C-alpha cells in the first residue's frame, strides 16, 4: 500500500487519471482518492496542512499495515529545468532548521536534491536546493508512522530564476506532473514492493486466529503466541501449528508453555537437504 500526499488538486489530477483512483466519499475533511494499492489525499497548501492530511490518512489506516508514503508536487529551484523531477535526499524545515534524511534503498531513475520547506512563498531561490511549502510537515508526520526508507518526497520543478512562480498555472502544474508519470511510477513501484515485503515480514502467522479462538490470551500472551508461531514457521516443520494438538491444555498459559516446550525440542539444521 502507498499513501500519496499532494498539496493541490491540479497536482493530484494526473495521478487520479493514471492510476484510476476513485473518490472516497467516506472522507469529508480532505479530498481522498484510492484504488486497491494506493490512497491519495489532497492536503492544501502549507506544511501544517500537509502534516494534518498525513496524520488523517495514517489514522484511517489499519494499524497492522506497513504503508509507504510519498509527497508529490511541484517545487522551485534556482537553476534546474522546468519539468525536471527530483527526489529529496535531505529535507529541511526552514523555520525550525530541523532536518530529515530519507533512506533511499530502491533504485531511482531521477536525480536527487535537498528540499527546504518554507512557511511563506519566497522570491529568492536557495543555492542547490528545491523549495516547497509542504514537505517538512509531511515528513515530520509520516515519520511517526513509518521508517525513513518508506517515506519520500518527489518534486517536479515548476519555477526557477528564469521562469518565475507567478507564471505557474493549474494547467501547467498538471502538465509537468503528467509528463513525469513514468518517473513517478518508477518511484511508486519499488516503494509498493518494499511495503509488501515489510508486511510479509511483520504479519502474524495465519494460525494465530485459530489459537485465539480456542483460548483467551491477554495482549502480552498474544505477543508471546505470535513469537512462538513465527518460531514454528521458521523451523520449517512438516506439521502446521494447530490448537487441536494442544487441546488438552485448558488455559492459555498452559498452552503457551506446551507450544514453547514443543519448539525447544525441535532439531535445528542448516543443511538444506535435511531441512526440506
Amino acid at each position, binding site marked *: 500500500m502507498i499513501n500519496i500526499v499532494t498539496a493541490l488538486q491540479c497536482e493530484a489530477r494526473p495521478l487520479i487519471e493514471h492510476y484510476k483512483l476513485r473518490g472516497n466519499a467516506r472522507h469529508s475533511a480532505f479530498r481522498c482518492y484510492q484504488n486497491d494499492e494506493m490512497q491519495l489525499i489532497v492536503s492544501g497548501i502549507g506544511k501544517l496542512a500537509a502534516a494534518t492530511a498525513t496524520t488523517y490518512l495514517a489514522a484511517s489506516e489499519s494499524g497492522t499495515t506497513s504503508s509507504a508514503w510519498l509527497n508529490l508536487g511541484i517545487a522551485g529551484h534556482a537553476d534546474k529545468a522546468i519539468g525536471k523531477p527530483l527526489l529529496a*535526499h*535531505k529535507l529541511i524545515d526552514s523555520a525550525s532548521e530541523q*532536518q530529515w*534524511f530519507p*533512506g*533511499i*534503498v*530502491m*533504485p*531511482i531513475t531521477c*536525480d*536527487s536534491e*535537498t528540499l527546504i520547506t518554507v512557511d511563506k512563498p519566497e522570491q529568492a531561490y536557495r543555492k542547490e536546493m528545491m523549495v516547497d511549502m509542504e514537505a517538512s510537515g509531511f515528513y515530520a508526520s509520516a*515519520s511517526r508512522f*513509518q*521508517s*525513513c*526508507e*518508506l517515506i519520500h518526497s518527489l518534486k517536479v520543478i515548476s519555477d526557477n530564476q528564469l521562469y518565475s512562480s507567478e507564471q505557474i498555472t493549474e494547467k501547467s502544474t498538471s502538465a509537468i506532473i503528467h509528463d513525469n508519470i513514468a518517473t513517478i511510477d518508477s518511484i511508486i513501484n519499488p516503494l509498493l514492493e*518494499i511495503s509488501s515485503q*515489510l508486511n510479509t*515480514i511483520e504479519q502474524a502467522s495465519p494460525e494465530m486466529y485459530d489459537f485465539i479462538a480456542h483460548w483467551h490470551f491477554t495482549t502480552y500472551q498474544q505477543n508471546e503466541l505470535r*513469537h512462538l508461531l*513465527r*518460531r*514454528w*514457521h*521458521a*523451523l*520449517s516443520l512438516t506439521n502446521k501449528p494447530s490448537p487441536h494438538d494442544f487441546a488438552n491444555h485448558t488455559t492459555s498459559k498452559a498452552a503457551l508453555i506446551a507450544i514453547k516446550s514443543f*519448539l*525447544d525440542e*525441535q*532439531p*535445528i*539444521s*542448516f*543443511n*538444506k537437504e*535435511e*531441512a526440506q
Partner: protein
Amino acid sequence: MHRLIYIEEDVADHPRTKAICERFPKATKVYCKYYGEVFNRKGQNFRLQKQQPALILARKHKKHVLNAPDGYGIGGRRNYYFSHMLNCVYDCRYCFLQGMYRSANYVIFVNYEDFQQSIIEAAQQYPDDESWFFSGYDCDSLAYEPVTDFTNQFLPTFAQLPNAHLELRTKSLQIRTLLKSEPINNCVVAYSFTPEEISKALEHGVPSVEKRIEAMIKLQQHGWRLGLRFDPMIYQEGFEEGYKNLFEQIFSRLSPDSIHSVSLGTLRTPKVFHQNMVNLYPEEKLFAGRFDESRGMITYQKELEEQMTNFCYDQLMQHIPQSLFFACTPPE
C-alpha cells in the same frame, strides 16, 4: 556502489574524504552536521537499508580506543578495540551489529590520525606490558580495504610500536595490501569460520570456507602470522561432524608454524540486540531454536554450550598445541 554519500561538513575537506569520494564519482554527496543525524536517528529499518547501504564519512571526536569486552582477548594483559568503521559489508545473521545499530549504512571515520595517536598513547602508557588492539569489532577489518585503505594506513603505526599488537579480524579476501606489505611480527590476521553449511545459510555475502583458506595460505606464504576464530560457534543437529570437518579442512592446509592463535567462542548476544534481530528476521531459523537468558545475555543452553565447547576444544587439540588456544568466553 553507493548512490549516496553522507558527509559531515567538518570533514568535507579532509584528504581521506576526498580520496574516498573519488572512488564513487557517480554518488550524490549529502552534507550533514553530525553523522548521528543520519546513522542514529529513530525510525530506520536495518534490514531494508542492508539492501542498499549508503556511505557516511565522519569524524570520531573521542574514545578512539576503548577497552575490549571481557573475554575478547588472546592472552594479552591489556586489550583494546578501535573502530575506524561501523557496520560490515557482509550480512551474517548472528552478528550483533544488526541488533545494535539502527542503520545498516557504513560509517567510515576518516580521521585515522586521531586513532593512530590514541593507539600510540595507549601502548606507551604501559610500556612494559603487551597491549592488543582489535580492529574487527564493529566491522570486518579487511572487507572494505579498497575504499578505506585501512591496513595501508595503520600497519606503519604498529610497526613502530613493539609492545603493541594488532589483530585484523576478517572473513575477507581483500589481502592485496597485506601481500604487498612487509609482514610485521606484531600483527595477526585472524580469520573467522563456521562450518560450510552454516556459513552458506547464515553468512550472506561471505567468501566460501575454501576461498578463505586459500587467502590464509597466501598470507602464510608471505610471512604473516595467522589467527583462527571459531567465534561464535553455531549449533545445529550433528554439529560435531560440521566442526570436525571444518577443522580438518583448515589444519590440513595451513602450516602450524604460522598459526599465532586459535580461539573458540559461544554465541552470546545482549538481550536487547537479540530482540531487535529477531524482529528484523522473524523467519530466520537461527533464532527459532532454544535460547536461554543469563545476565542480560541471550545464549544457548549452558549444557549445550559446554557440549559444543568441549567437543570443539578436544578436536582442536588434535591439530594445535594447547599454548595456541584461547577461549573467548566472558568470565562467570
